[in-house]
């Protein structure tokens, strides 16, 4: 009996192994595209989610009133809206009409009152949700939203804002399904299936393993799916992610692979690495109210010392670009203000600035530089060490200090504890205001060029230049004429660089690695990066498998 049982078990296992090896599974399946990521989902509730990967999923199962054209980071077009918004003369009222026949994946029709009801949910319960996107991207701007009829949505703003169309394309402004996301509570992980009005719906979600997307049968928009199924697989180790795309277990390796892994994959047959000049930047926060950083000569000397090319070559193997203004290249009004002013590395100029404040080779300027060794990857320690060496080529003595991330972030951006430290940034919406305002207004995330003030949206500037900068940025935020707005940002970046509010260092390229049988669509831009532009939006609908 025992012998028979064991023989039977052996046969079952052997047959299963043979079946498994013969069946087209994984990336060999022609109707399925598998995307590997090291991101994790923090929330699928558009009223709460505030992470890039969460937004990617939400935007693929949903569609905004306005959307970015695939492959473009500067072309906003109507999505579920019939046309671009009508804007009132005072810039405070935006009116949009819904296209007819917009439906969720279960057939529920989207009407303007339904949109408004779900949007009001975001404004009421949003601030109590864990990730609280509402307090950053909605509540500061929206006074009210209403639906005068079944197809019309009217937003009333608190102040005119030039970048409101960009906000309309962001995840919090997407309509959510009322059954899965009730008005009474945030639901971060509703039970699948999860329907939106976009091209896909979530049919299965196995935490930490995979998320399965199927085409929305009621979708009538422009982004029609090209394959039957998309599977997102979650990885913990970038090395394993790289090996998985190399051996074909996945079709696409998306965020994040370390620079050295990207380098290795470039040499692999059947694998293409597409590089996107992404929007993630690294920079130094300077606390302008803490000595010696309160001395303009000291911060200018620091800005004159940084050798960005050396950092890129040494630490990022060339897989990054120099950032010469906080407003990155490609964004409205981007300049190279730091290069124009400081032409760094320029040790002579740095020492001249320091000499003006009484520092020389015998009396060096002692500064502290902080960094979080565990948050921005292994490269952080290496490039902070390099910055220390660069600063010490001039008359600086640098005390490099490391701190655990949560303590670090709180102390640095609180503006009380650290002289200077490194930080990373990725925008919420692709607009210069999102790269400049946060570092200037209301404490400026620890830069202290303005001091937070009760009842003020901008804070109290610490000097005349800071006041001028605040005025320019505030004016640019509401200026709707693009030429005038561009000019305002150009002026603002000059003052920003003169004040050395922060020191921009590098802009990190993002990389998308894919097998040779995968492509983007030729009718959209950036086909070589699978139609991913600098806004890093990966549209699963434009992915094609041969």
């Amino acid at each position, binding site marked *: 009996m025992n012998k028979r049982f064991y023989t039977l078990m052996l046969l*079952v*296992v052997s*047959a*299963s*192994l*043979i*079946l*498994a*090896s013969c*069946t087209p*599974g*994984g990336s060999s*399946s022609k109707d*399925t595209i*598998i995307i590997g990521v090291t991101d*994790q*989902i923090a*929330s699928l509730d558009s009223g709460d989610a505030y992470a890039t990967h969460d937004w990617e999923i939400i935007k693929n199962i949903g569609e905004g009133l306005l959307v970015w054209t695939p492959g473009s980071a500067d072309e906003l077009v109507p999505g579920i809206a019939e046309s671009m918004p009508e804007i009132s003369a005072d810039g405070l009222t935006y009116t949009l009409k819904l296209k007819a026949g917009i439906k969720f994946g279960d057939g529920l029709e989207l009407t303007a009152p339904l949109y408004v009801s779900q949007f009001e949910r975001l404004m009421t319960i949003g*601030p*109590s949700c*864990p990730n*609280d996107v509402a*307090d*950053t991207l909605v509540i500061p701007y929206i006074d009210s939203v209403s639906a005068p009829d079944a197809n019309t949505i009217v937003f009333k703003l608190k102040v005119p804002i030039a970048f409101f169309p960009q906000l309309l394309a962001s995840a919090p402004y997407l309509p959510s399904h009322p059954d899965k996301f009730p008005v009474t509570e945030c639901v*971060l*992980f509703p039970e699948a299936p999860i329907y939106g009005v976009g091209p896909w719906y979530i*049919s*299965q979600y*196995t*935490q*930490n*393993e*995979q998320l*399965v997307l199927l085409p929305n049968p009621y979708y009538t928009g422009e982004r029609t799916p090209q394959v039957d*199924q998309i*599977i997102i*697989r*979650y*990885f*913990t*180790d970038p*090395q*394993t*992610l790289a*090996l*998985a795309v190399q*051996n*074909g*277990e996945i079709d696409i390796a998306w965020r994040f692979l370390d620079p050295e892994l990207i380098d290795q994959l470039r040499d692999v047959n059947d694998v293409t690495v597409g590089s996107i000049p992404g929007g993630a930047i690294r920079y130094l926060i300077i606390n302008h109210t803490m000595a010696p950083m309160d001395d303009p000569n000291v911060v200018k000397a620091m800005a004159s010392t940084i050798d960005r090319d050396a950092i890129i070559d040494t630490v990022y193997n060339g897989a990054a670009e120099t950032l010469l203004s906080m407003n990155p290249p490609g964004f409205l009004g981007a300049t190279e203000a730091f290069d124009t002013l400081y032409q760094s590395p320029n040790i002579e100029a740095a020492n001249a600035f320091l000499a003006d404040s009484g520092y020389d080779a015998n009396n060096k300027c002692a500064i502290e530089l902080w960094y979080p060794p*565990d948050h921005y990857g292994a490269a952080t320690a290496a490039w902070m060490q390099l910055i220390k060496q660069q600063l010490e080529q001039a008359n600086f003595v640098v005390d490099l200090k490391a*701190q*655990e*991330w*949560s*303590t670090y*972030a*709180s102390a*640095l951006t609180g503006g009380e504890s650290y002289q200077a430290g490194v930080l990373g940034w990725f925008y919420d919406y692709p607009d210069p205001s999102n790269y400049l305002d*946060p570092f200037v207004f209301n404490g400026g*995330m620890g830069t202290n060029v303005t001091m937070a003030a009760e009842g003020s949206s901008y804070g109290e500037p610490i000097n005349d230049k800071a006041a001028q900068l605040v005025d320019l940025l505030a004016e640019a935020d509401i200026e709707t004429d693009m030429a005038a707005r561009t000019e305002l940002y150009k002026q603002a970046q000059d003052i920003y660089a003169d004040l050395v509010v922060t020191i921009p260092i590098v802009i990190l390229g993002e990389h998308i690695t894919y097998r040779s049988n995968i492509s983007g669509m030729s009718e959209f831009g950036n086909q070589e990066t699978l139609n991913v532009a600098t806004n890093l939006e990966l549209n699963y609908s434009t992915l094609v498998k041969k």
Partner: protein
Amino acid sequence: MTPIAFILLIIGVPSLIMLLYIFIRGSMGMRKYILTRIALTVPMIFILASLVFFIMRVLPGDPVRSALGPRGTEIQAEHMRAQLGLDKPLIVQYGNFLKDIITLDFGNSMVGGHRPIIDEMSERFPATLELVIPASILALVIGIIGGSMAAAHRKKALDFSFRIYSVIIYSLPIFWFGLMLQLLFGVKLNLLPISGRIDPVIGTTLHRVTNMYLIDSLISGNWQALGSVVTHLILPTVTLGLVLSGVFVRMTRINVIETLQADYIAAARARGIRERVVVYGHALKNAMIPVITLIGLQVAILLAGAVLTETIFNWPGMGGYLVQRISARDYTAVQSVIAMFALLVALISLAVDIIYSLVDPRVRY
């Protein structure tokens, strides 16, 4: 029923019945011993859980700030602290923590989706079990066979080979060894999958009941899934199992050699019993007693090894979860996972002690 409850049911109920049987049928000394061991297990877990609770709070780092990042305002931080109960006095937090452990509730995670810890464990614990059980079996099989063969051929080529094997394999860094296997069998030869528990497409057809995919595929009769699960298990099991087998080879070898010098072995040989029967029939059984103790001790090492193996092979188990949550200073998750590990190690140690006392009648309590 959650997967973790199901697993506890299928493992816990038979174990409890067996324990009761031993308790009722055993001697008074045995009963006393079992009661003492159970009584000692409770304070052990309590002390360990308390230590973890306080160490997590002494360490630098704040789960709220870690979750909010640099953009988080003080108002948001206060709001989140209140939601998570971190605004309460430490002693109140400690009381709540103990209550959660006793009720096996564990509370909610402090980061990510703020999901109930018990749900997260339900998803991950079965994955770890599915990796650890076959790896242990592999380690034991290689260890016992290799160790006894080495002892039987003492000071011969086979003995030296196994001794060298055990030293090398035990000293191999598990992440390096795993990576080499991935490169060879996954990338170069393209024979075996290198990541995950099941093929993603086949995974969509698997009905998950226990979250132990081997069992789930068998229950549902999904043979294609079974095949995929088995092929996905091979590399991580081999990595973890081989690394752990080294210590079992050495331990078995030493014990078999010692046993082979005993008088009853000499008597057996004098009676003309074949050497093969002497070694594998008589000596090995007795040599296994200390090895059984070692199994209990190795559980903790096995779980530590699983942390690295899970990371390398993208195995979504408890190890990877623990690493993620330590980085995020997720107090509740870390405390709960360590309490769970402690409970597991304590229960296995208890089981090993009881088995030891059963197989070795000389042991008196």
